[in-house]
């Protein structure tokens, strides 16, 4: 039963919450509202002027290439999510169940290290590895294969996405799997479940929330990434983040770029909320 003080405004709790609320207001809600407002502005002589017109929405929504780019971006981000989730799971499972606590701590530390280096630098280093005269093709040529074109392809884009997201997904999955109640696993095994069946019926459902959060992070990062599709995918064809850059570069159409940004935000919110709802869904 709640007391009167708990029911009313708790000043102490509110004080500690205020920084987060202000941060969200200043750095998320405020810019988001401005971006939405900007979609109705117009550009005259390279200068943005305040207006309330639907021209930018009509223009962008009516362009076939916008929708091509939209579905391409959703497709690539989904593929990246599935790939990262599948690649990360065996590694996370091993770290969570098969190694000592000390080894797990070191592994997580090494997974964090890539974030110390600029993502752009890490992306450019793939040039040396994936180029037709690069490391992989040189090695393949020793056994009579290749050269294969890997840069400026969707494969290149996917390599970039993995560079960005895979370490994070492994970390999130590892933390999630490490918190699975071991007694449930032992019970499953005592009841005769084999290894695969235990993973499918006990471990994955128990770690579902963490696994889905890892996948959602991967989708969000891939969906909004400019670097991988531009530098490793050759901008061929462009994804939505590249379209934002292109739109702002050509004619300084910030309002049209804002339309693309708002569509991206709505997509991400739908994906994130749907995923969270699914994660916490009770059977």
């Amino acid at each position, binding site marked *: 039963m709640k007391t009167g003080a708990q029911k009313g405004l708790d000043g102490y709790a509110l004080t500690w919450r205020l920084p987060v609320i202000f941060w969200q207001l200043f750095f998320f809600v405020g810019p988001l509202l401005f971006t939405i407002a900007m979609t109705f502005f117009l550009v005259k002589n390279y200068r943005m002027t305040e207006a309330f017109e639907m021209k930018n929405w009509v223009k962008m929504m009516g362009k076939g290439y916008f929708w091509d780019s939209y579905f391409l971006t959703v497709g690539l981000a989904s593929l990246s999510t599935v790939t990262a989730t599948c690649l990360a799971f065996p590694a996370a499972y091993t770290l969570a169940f098969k190694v000592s606590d000390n080894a797990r701590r070191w592994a997580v530390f090494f997974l964090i290290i890539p974030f110390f280096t600029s993502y752009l630098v890490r992306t450019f280093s793939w040039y040396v590895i994936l*180029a037709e005269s690069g490391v992989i093709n040189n090695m393949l040529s020793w056994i009579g294969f290749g050269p294969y074109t890997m840069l400026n392809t969707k494969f290149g884009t996917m390599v970039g996405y993995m560079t960005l997201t895979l370490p994070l997904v492994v970390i999130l999955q590892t933390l999630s799997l490490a918190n699975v109640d071991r007694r449930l696993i032992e019970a499953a095994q005592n009841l005769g479940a084999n290894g695969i069946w235990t993973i499918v019926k006990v471990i994955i459902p128990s770690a579902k929330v963490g696994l889905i959060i890892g996948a959602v992070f991967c989708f969000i990062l891939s969906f909004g990434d400019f670097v991988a599709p531009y530098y490793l995918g050759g*901008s061929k064809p*462009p994804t939505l983040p590249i379209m934002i850059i292109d*739109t702002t570069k050509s004619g*300084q159409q910030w309002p049209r770029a804002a339309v693309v940004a708002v569509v991206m935000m709505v997509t991400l919110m739908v994906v994130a909320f749907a995923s969270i709802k699914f994660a916490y869904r009770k059977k």
Partner: protein
Amino acid sequence: MTEQTDLLRRKFIKQSTIVSSALAMPMILTTNKASADPVEINMLAWYGHGEPDVVSAFEAENNVKFKPKYYAGGDNMMALIAQSPPGTYDIILSDGEFVQQLNEAGYIEELNADDYPFDDFLFEDFTKFPGHWKDGKLFSTMVRFGHLGVSYNKNHVTAEEAMSYQCFWKPELLGKVGHFDWHLPSLGMMSLYNGNAKPSPFDIDGSAWDKVQETTMSLRPQVGGFFDYGGTFNSLKNGEMLAMCGIGDWITGVLEKDGAPVASVVPKEGGIQWTESYCIGKGSEKAALVNKFIQYMLSPAGQVRSAQMAAYPGFCVTQGGVSALQAANMVEAERTGQVEGAVNNPIRLIEEGRIHYRDIPQQQSLEDWNDFWSEYKNA
């Protein structure tokens, strides 16, 4: 007691003097330093123009410090100026075709033609470059230029093949043709390939524009990527792209010096000239210093630095500059055709009618060209 008080007072005065002096020292040092601080000049330019290899000598001689803000493309430049208060940029390096827009928007100051060595310019057109004069008043002066055509890997495309834009459609180059990611040069080249040399590849009617779009779309299967400045360098250097549309010696010249097997030529259908001109920003309080810098860049010493700029080379615009370049670096002068009688002499190419000044679309809007470029990239 009094003696002790005197002692304390003296001690206090002594210690407070030391403390005050110590506290005041940074102010004194700052004041002295301030008088020696270089004057800061805000520059808006393409990448490389405010780097030490270009400006260091002028900075040292005149106690100034350039603070560059770099852009890529005339649209980007216009927007940066439009979004800044008057007087933000003291000096603006503009693409020649955008000077007119700068002037119409009132972003640049009038110049005094007597300040510059127009008598020494290599070509009459350069002294009266389109858009640089208005109602008999000068607003900008050309400082360097370059030619765009077919850029190619010499191991995969022969010099004969490179003499026509047709080489971009060569079956062996499937997926190996790159684009510099800016619509004006690439679409200009496609326009030239379609025979729209006169009056200008950028001055075409509706039906010619439709054909340019058709021709460009037919190239799409050959295209391996669309690249920015760094990506263009990398893809040509590591052999990912074997031919590049929309660039010229300003990229391959740098790679050639590094030993990459690449080159650029002006094909038989003609090439496009990029032109860079200096303007003084409206409301600049350092106009006199900036004017001095423009004079320096047009002097033989400045022209040599411009011609050998580390970021990307450009041709000299004055005879004095060409002579100084030949004296300083004959190899570079010969490589770029800046010697008497060279087949690729830039002035000779212009006089032969093979070069067309890059321009903004005359009969369509920039937006039309931009839209098509986006469609093309997504095709």
